[in-house]
């Protein structure tokens, strides 16, 4: 398995905080990787750094090319091959452009022809030509998401980073976006980096999963195994906290105690220890390294769950 994207020891700093702390991660061609975590976990920051939209320290290679050694032509090529679909779709569309112009714009930026493909691209995502002359503020959340997706797809990318693709959408239409992404992946062999706090979504569509807590990777591995046998107490807590329909009230839904610490002052040692039900003295002093835990998993915990 050759990695399409490979990142080693990526650190992203903002003025007074370390938003992403030494994260290593890889993504194979055609694979769907989920990045999960709560606010302050650095998941969106990491995703943006991985495609060169934020300055970082460490190593990131896409198709074997190191991101920080790209010339202008290499940059442009990268921007064509790797696409971001932003979380807030409506405000990610330039407000004075029509939908048609918005979908043409990526082609114009890269000096490519075939502007007439805009309508077909929209149609392929289930939106009619009537939408072409609308402005972003006239679109519903779901429509805007699909326009943003059309802009990404028209450049024929190999990797799409989808930041919270279902956020702000009703449950009944969330599936449409997810199904479009899955279908594209099957047809085009697209790799997908899916950033989400919604574990239900992650569970349905990702092959592998990386869980972040306060800027650090706590567990990675095949999604199925992580849900069946979480090794890190935080992974377990996240799964237990996710809401599921349970009118008989048989499943214990539990929540880890305490608040999310501020990323400006992360706890010493293991960052999860103040909320961890299994924390011991060692967890308070020593930060656990990410180590292999079988079944293709890695976990950063001194006392992983059996």
């Amino acid at each position, binding site marked *: 398995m050759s990695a399409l994207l490979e990142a080693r020891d990526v650190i992203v700093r903002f003025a007074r905080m370390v938003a992403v702390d030494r994260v290593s991660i890889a993504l194979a061609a055609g694979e769907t990787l989920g990045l999960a975590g*709560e*606010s302050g976990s650095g998941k969106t920051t990491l995703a943006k750094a991985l495609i060169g939209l934020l300055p970082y320290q460490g190593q990131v290679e896409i198709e074997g090319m190191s991101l920080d050694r790209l010339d202008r032509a290499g940059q442009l090529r990268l921007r064509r091959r790797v696409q971001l679909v932003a979380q807030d779709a409506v405000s990610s569309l330039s407000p004075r452009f029509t939908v048609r112009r918005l979908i043409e714009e990526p082609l114009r930026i890269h000096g490519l022809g075939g502007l007439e493909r805009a309508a077909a691209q929209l149609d392929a995502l289930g939106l009619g030509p009537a939408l072409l002359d609308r402005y972003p503020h006239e679109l*519903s959340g*779901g429509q805007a998401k699909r326009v943003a997706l059309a802009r990404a797809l028209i450049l024929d990318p190999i990797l799409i980073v989808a930041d919270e693709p279902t956020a702000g959408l*009703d*449950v*009944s*239409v*969330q*599936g*449409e976006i*997810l*199904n479009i992404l*899955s279908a594209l992946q099957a047809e085009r062999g697209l790799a997908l980096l899916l950033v989400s*706090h*919604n*574990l*239900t979504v992650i*569970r*349905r*569509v990702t092959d592998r999963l990386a869980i972040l807590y306060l800027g650090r990777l706590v567990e990675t591995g095949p999604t199925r195994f992580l849900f069946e046998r979480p090794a890190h107490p935080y992974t377990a*807590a*996240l799964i*237990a*906290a*996710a*809401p*599921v*329909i*349970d*009118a*008989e*009230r048989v499943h214990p*839904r*539990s*929540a*880890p*105690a305490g*608040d*999310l610490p501020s990323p400006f002052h992360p706890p010493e040692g293991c960052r999860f220890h103040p909320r961890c039900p299994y924390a011991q003295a060692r967890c308070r002093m020593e930060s656990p390294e990410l180590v292999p835990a079988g079944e293709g998993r890695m976990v950063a915990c001194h006392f992983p769950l059996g």
Partner: protein
Amino acid sequence: MTLLELRDLSLDYAGKRSLDRLSLTLERGRILGLVGESGSGKSSLALALMDLLPGNAALDGQILLNGTDLRAITPHQRAALRGRKLAMVFQDPMTALNPLFPIGRQLVDAQRARHPEAGRRALLDRGREMLRRVGIADPEARLKAYPHELSGGMRQRVLIAMALLCEPDLLIADEPTTALDVTIEAQIMGLFEELRDHFSGSILFISHSLALVSRLADEVAVLYAGHLIETAPARTLFALPAHPYTQALIACETGEGEGKIVPTIPGAVPAPGSDLPGCSFAPRCPARQPLCIEAAPPLRDVGQGRRAACHFA
């Protein structure tokens, strides 16, 4: 005994129908879960109950609280109900507290309507005790804190404490966990589940999530495009949903599809004011018949305590 009864409640915004002849009852001491997606009118209903609708809203029908029609009393009497009989917990805990005053003062002010004669000390003591009850550690220190010094989860706990301090007959919670992280949401939902045993009033819990409502509510009402399309005891609703929309929504949330294909409901909610002659869900309904497009189904008894607005339920 019935605490709240809505009779043929309709709401129009600038001539566009947002709630259509809603009839619903809530018993004393019970929790009603009101579920709907965007455009269902669920938040408008909460605002209508609190008398907080904007000026371009036109209400029709009756809202009976303890048998009194809230629409027949004077605005002054109506306003006096807020903070005494009715209290509300809003969606966004970041903006629902006044940033200029410490928590303690806001807790005292929240009780003023209820206890006009009580001294500040006494109200502060009650506030401290309530903070402890809603799970805030070190309440003494929090009383002096300003809202921006508290996390989102803690602010929502403060807002719930504020609402409970009013000892309302009806507590309205409008998507109280939507703005929170999932582990914090689970904590707040745990708090609501505890309230079931400690709070004597009724709760109207409004949410877009069937999952949240399923664990909490005694009764569930499902709204779609301003229409009440199903009500049932919670267990029955999730075990035997009668309306195709409820069925589809449950499928969407549990997400059991084939492989990576996720269940969805094709189409979109009809735009407000589109005034379909038939069932509002008909355009998206998998079990649609010609009748559904022609005639709107009334809400009717379909057995086992369920009422559903579907010709074929």
